[in-house]
């Protein structure tokens, strides 16, 4: 008994000491988990490859013949691939969580690291960091494709098209914003996956969030409602960050649009965090 009484304070001190280091340890553990399976690496590669491939294809297929006016936002066109790349980001984010649930690994994780908020935070930080890196590669490749190909297809400065390059302010905003966009999509998907747990249902919900809204909105006859809803749709609002022409006719300003997506991501993460905290595994 006396030994037990003596040992009691020791763990408390250890816990207190560990508290500062705990996020670092959790991060390290999550990093090990991500690093040691091949899936995430392939998916990150897929984000970059698919985005650049689709962007290049879109840019390559677009010509502006002489004596025609071409209502094209060259920067947005160069970033077309993001529309596809975000699907791969969503898969990566969903699998980060749902794979642990389907294999039962989550029980081990939470036994080893009982502070659930730290586990979720570590997952979010790592995922966001990786997606931002892959997204930066993807966006840079897409912008490079637009920069190299578009002037040869008639989109020259002489005809009033701005350069698709990072030295041009709006293009820099669109490019950096697109990277952030992918990061926010990852966080929103992660939040959904934590709530839903099952990978199939999670990916269904996330894809619906990404792709369904714009389709349904395009069918709504009432322009007032259409306009109002578009402002609050994660992808329609979020992707306004890519617009560099016709900014006045946008439903929402670019950074505010990205802010709307950030609200969606924050709401999903908050709901996910609460559910994760109070639910049995």
């Amino acid at each position, binding site marked *: 008994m006396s030994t037990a009484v003596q040992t009691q304070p020791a763990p408390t001190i250890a816990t207190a000491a560990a508290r500062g280091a705990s996020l670092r340890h959790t991060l390290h553990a999550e990093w090990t988990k991500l690093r040691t399976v091949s899936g995430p690496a392939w998916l990150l590669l897929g984000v970059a490859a698919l985005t650049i491939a689709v962007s290049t294809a879109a840019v390559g297929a677009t010509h502006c013949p002489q004596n025609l006016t071409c209502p*094209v936002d060259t920067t947005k066109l160069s970033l077309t691939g993001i529309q596809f790349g975000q699907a791969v980001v969503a898969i990566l984010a969903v699998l980060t969580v749902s794979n642990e649930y389907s294999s039962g690994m989550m029980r081990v994780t939470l036994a080893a690291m009982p502070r659930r908020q730290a586990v979720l935070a570590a997952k979010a930080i790592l995922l966001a960091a990786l997606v931002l890196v892959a997204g930066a590669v993807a966006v840079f490749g897409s912008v490079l494709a637009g920069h190299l190909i578009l002037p040869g297809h008639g989109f020259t400065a002489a005809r009033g098209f701005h350069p698709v390059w990072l030295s041009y302010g709006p293009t820099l905003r669109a490019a950096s914003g697109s990277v952030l966009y992918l990061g926010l999509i990852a966080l929103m998907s992660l939040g959904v996956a934590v709530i839903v747990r099952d990978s199939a249902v999670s990916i*269904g919900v996330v894809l619906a969030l990404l792709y369904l809204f714009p389709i349904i909105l395009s069918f709504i006859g009432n322009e007032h409602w259409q306009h109002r809803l578009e402002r609050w749709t994660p992808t329609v609002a979020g992707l306004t960050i890519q617009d560099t022409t016709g900014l006045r006719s946008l439903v929402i300003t670019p950074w505010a649009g990205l802010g709307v997506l950030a609200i969606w991501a924050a709401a999903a993460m908050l709901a996910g965090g609460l559910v994760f905290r109070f639910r049995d595994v």
Partner: protein
Amino acid sequence: MTTQAISVPRPEAGFGDGPRGGGFGSLLRAEWIKFRSVRGWVIGMILAALLTIFLGVFAAANANIGCQINGGPPKSGKACLPYIPHGPGGEIVTDSFSFARQPLTGNGTITARVTSLTGEHADLNGGPAQVGSGMVPGLAEWAKVGIIIKQSTHQGSTYAAMMVTGRHGVRMQYNFTGDTAGMPGAVSAAHPRWLRLTRSGDTITGYDSADGTHWTQVGTVQLTGLPSTVQVGMFAASPGYTVTQNSFGGNSFAGGPAQATGVFDHVSLAGGAPSGAWTGTTVGGGGPAGAGPGPGGGSVPFTRNGGSYTLTGSGDIAPVTPGPGGGLPTVTIGQSLVGVFVGLIAIVVVAAMFFSTEYRRGLIRTTLAAAPRRGAVLAAKAVVIGAVAFVTGLVAAVVSIGVGVPKEENSGQVLLTASVLTEVRVIVGTAAMLAVAAVFAVALGAILRRSAAAITIAVVTVVMPFLLTALNVVPAGVGDWLLRVTPAAALAIEQSVPRYSQVTTVTSPVRGYYPLSPYAGFAVLCLWAAAALALALVMLRRRDA
């Protein structure tokens, strides 16, 4: 020990009999039991149907059309609609033009030479414009002047006409939907166009000529129910000018009112009892589509200078098509099926799980131990999920159209009607499309063994091409190409209105137009599903479970 030794062959015999004797039927039954005993999947399918219906009806009910006519009380819905003429074939048509006419009794021939076709249209770069102000010279693609034989001046009555057009040379058109090409090239004083229409009973024959001596027959048409006295004469009309002729932005639409002016000479009318005097009439108000009252009324100023006549008109003689070009708030039955995209995601999720879940739980080993013929297992799963998806889609499509379409009509939109056969094709085709998409997802689930990747591929390949095209993210040419080769081509099965080449319109999938014909588009998805099934079969046989 002996009893055991005896008992061993029995299960083996039963084992071998299973797939051969009870065979595929019992496999189907097994897969059906697997499906219906998972509550989540059944709920998923019910949810797919409910969401499809809800969204379709929501989108349909959301249109809100209001108007105020001549300072009267504000109205909404159906009360805002103008008189809508129907053509001889029952389709909704635009029938408004300037008409210099006289009656013709019995058989006869009208001949005229067109020496000039000019026009003006709203300046699209100069902000909003109206007829009379802000107009710049230019011709709409399908601006038309020429000669016409028409039952009466009533909108929608049967007719046949020979005309020169803005961009499409000489045409013979009849009864709104018929269109035959004649001499190519633009008309000018140096290159005039001679046009001739001959009536013989119900038969109208059209000719064109460059010199008035050598005539070429363009076409011949039977106009059933043509009365003995008809109206013949010269006409001029121009649909709204649009920039859809811009080769890049085939989907982007900007338009404004336009009018066309034709100069005629060598006008002659032979046969019957011509009265000799031309009466100017504006059929259908002559304004934009559907702007006028029912029967023709009002006089149109046309000038005569010796043997030369100048006639100016606006409007069109053509079927109404979806999109802003027609001037009417039109809908098609396919537009109340927007919810199908939601249903598709739900069905694809269930279908992909139907196979990939067996890998996660290790059930696949039990399944393949019980039924070692792997191809049959794959086929049974495809049949079961395809049938379930078909029934779900059928219910959803029938209710969506049954509830959504009346709501659209009540809100003041004009339904572009389709024949019963077309409606059946749209409804059954939608259900079949969902079924084949489910089979595609099952096959992807078997190939990838991971539901997330399988679902994403199935959803993105069907939804993204539509989205990119509908929202003008990619140029029109690329969008058309995507809707031809990707699984999204199957959405063409929902097209309920024919595409008329003689009407400038926005051929966006949101308006119900697809680049492939309905069955060809559906076949593309079937090919994708078949290819995925074949690959799944190969993988399933080669790989350990």
